[in-house]
């Protein structure tokens, strides 16, 4: 089955998922992000690469954080950015997802950044653009259902590479609600592609997907066992609606078994780094002492996130 995000020549046409994305392309994105990090430290934080291009932030699910970082990234590339918060209202008005896309294409869209509550929405859009001969328009998946959040995965990889250098020597744990997490899935694909020998998922059975080992991870239900010897600990956000009821009895009980505290972190390597995609629920998945402590690289993740998104956009916009 051909990969819909690559052109026939193997060039990146869209960024839909980290599954099946060759290591060379991931490496190129990370390498391209490096100079963009220093651009952020200049007075004039812009480069003219996407001047004259129109980027639409198409968010069917609310997210001020992610939308803002994409907006900043696109503007730093000198693109024109238009934010569309579609939410549920447009769907009830009867306009389908693809009708919305067609309308925006007619307004000379060059790039769509799409966040949607259902897995596969960006794939559908990319497929539609290909079927209607608009190969020059690029799609970036900003999060689709539980399936993927490839730019988050890439910025997590960038962060790990920045602090730890060689993936092939690392033990990395991902903790929390993996079942519902697109962040976890993308990161797992990226880590396994780059040769990480030991990727662990830690969580209760209710929050781990069926056959998760097939993604190339080791499962731990005991957090202390899972953290032993880790170089990187990635804490996932626990959404409030999961905290009570059938999946978990309470936030308190979750924190007791799966929250990251200073004491539990000592089981990891002394120079381990702690990551979190944000926004954090302090006292639920992570203790404030850890979040604000010396192991935490949560704030640098945000800075790297803008640079990585600039890299993705400039590689896509420059492809033929």
């Amino acid at each position, binding site marked *: 089955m051909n990969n819909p995000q690559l052109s026939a020549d193997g060039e990146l046409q869209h960024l839909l998922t980290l599954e099946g994305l060759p290591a060379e392309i991931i490496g190129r994105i990370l390498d391209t992000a490096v100079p963009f990090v220093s651009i952020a430290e200049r007075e004039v934080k812009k480069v003219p690469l996407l001047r004259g291009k129109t980027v639409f932030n198409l968010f069917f699910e609310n997210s001020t954080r992610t939308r803002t970082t994409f907006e900043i990234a696109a503007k730093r590339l000198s693109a024109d950015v238009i934010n569309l918060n579609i939410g549920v209202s447009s769907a009830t008005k009867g306009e389908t997802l693809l009708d919305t896309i067609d309308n925006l294409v007619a307004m000379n869209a060059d790039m769509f950044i799409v966040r949607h509550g*259902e897995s596969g929405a960006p794939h*559908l859009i990319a497929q539609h653009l290909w079927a209607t001969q608009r190969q020059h328009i690029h799609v970036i998946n900003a999060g689709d*259902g539980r399936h993927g959040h490839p730019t988050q995965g890439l910025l997590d990889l960038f962060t790990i590479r920045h602090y730890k250098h060689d993936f092939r020597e690392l033990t990395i744990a991902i903790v929390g609600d993996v079942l519902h997490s*697109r962040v976890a*899935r993308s990161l797992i694909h990226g880590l396994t592609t780059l040769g990480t020998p030991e990727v662990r998922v830690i969580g209760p059975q209710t929050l781990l*997907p*069926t*056959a998760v080992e097939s993604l190339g991870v080791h499962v731990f239900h005991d957090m202390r066992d899972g953290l032993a010897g880790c170089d990187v600990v990635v804490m996932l956000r626990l959404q409030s609606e999961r905290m009570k009821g059938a999946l978990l009895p309470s936030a308190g009980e979750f924190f007791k078994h799966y929250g990251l505290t200073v004491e539990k972190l000592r089981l990891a390597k002394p120079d381990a780094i702690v990551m979190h995609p944000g926004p954090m629920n302090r006292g639920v998945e992570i203790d404030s002492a850890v979040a604000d402590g010396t192991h935490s690289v949560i704030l640098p993740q945000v800075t790297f996130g803008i640079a990585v998104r600039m890299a993705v956009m400039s590689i896509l916009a420059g492809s033929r």
Partner: protein
Amino acid sequence: MRIEIRGGRLIDPKHGIDRPASVYVAAGKVAAIGDAPSGWHADRVLDATRLVVCPGLIDSSARLREPGFEYKATLESEVAAAIAGGVTSLACPPDTDPPLDEPGLVEMLKHRARSLNQAHVYPIGALTVGLKGEIITEMGELTEAGCIAFSHADAALANTQVLLRALQYAATFGYKVWLRPQDVHLARGGVAHDGEVATRLGLPAIPSFAETIALDAIFELVRATGVQVHLARISSHDGVARVRAAKKAGLPVTCDVAVHHVHLCDVDIGWFNAHCHLVPPLRGTRDRAALRTGLSDGTVDLICSDHTPVDDDAKQLPFAEAEPGATALELLLPLTLKWAREEKLPLTTALARITSDPARVLGLDAGHLAAGADADVCVFDPELHWRVEPDALRSQGKNTPFLGFELPGKVRFTLVGGQLVHES
């Protein structure tokens, strides 16, 4: 009109016949097989050289979308699709809008079908009013209006108390009940089989035990009530095993599989192909293998198309939001032939699953071609491959996972009640 179907290969699974023989049709019946009756002259001769002549196919589940969903398809288009696919009798599930829970609706549907004078349509009535799962329907009245069985289609029937009463009532009068084995709560929100593929694609999933838990409950109720139950759309390895055990224990159950599940599994979803969004979901390779074995050894009694035409707008959506179902009346024969070839099964066995076996389960005197039988005949070219394209389908639904595939088996003539209703 006297029709002679000359020089074809006659396959009549019920009577175990697979030999060259001509078929003579007169006054709506099969007049003779092999040698012409005395004094025979034909008004029309159909040249069946190198073609297979078999009983008209019987499809035990095809949605015609009337009443209520005419923007998706109409009786005209779907019955035309049926006969183009060699299907001369079909049973339609009760999930129309409104559901088939009133005699008037059933009579109207039968009347509409009769006036088209093409395929025979056998409605399956709703088991509960409005398919809401609360109040049982007037099964006596519905049977008189023409319902051949009662089912709950894909609507939820979670209240086991209601289900028990409905089965007891049906058993009292000898009505057959069709049930889809899927636990309502375990299946809620799920759109794909709970396994590696759904995990990777991040799709809400339905575990296999949603089917087996429901089967166990159904078998208990069958034991308690003695009702005849047909299990619609078995999908899992463990489900097939349960049915095999139940039959061995002597329970009056039959079961079917949708033709898609004979060929496809969850991996075929690929990058979220909404044409593979089906109910029940496409499961794993092990499940598909078990369904095939079950079909070969008779645990699974028959193959149906589960024909469900869906308009383009409802399919061009992210996978979970897309309406489930596939168009399949015209693919029932080709996909059955493909299965037979892959498993190296004799055509008599394969065709039995779409002729004599459905006739038996539906309780129809059809699906065979002995002298005196109704002349519902399908004549097809087993070697002609054709490409599945939207233009090649008569159905209004173009939603099939087999778009672009080349499949074997092209229907050349279809006769219903001795009349030539389709030729190509």
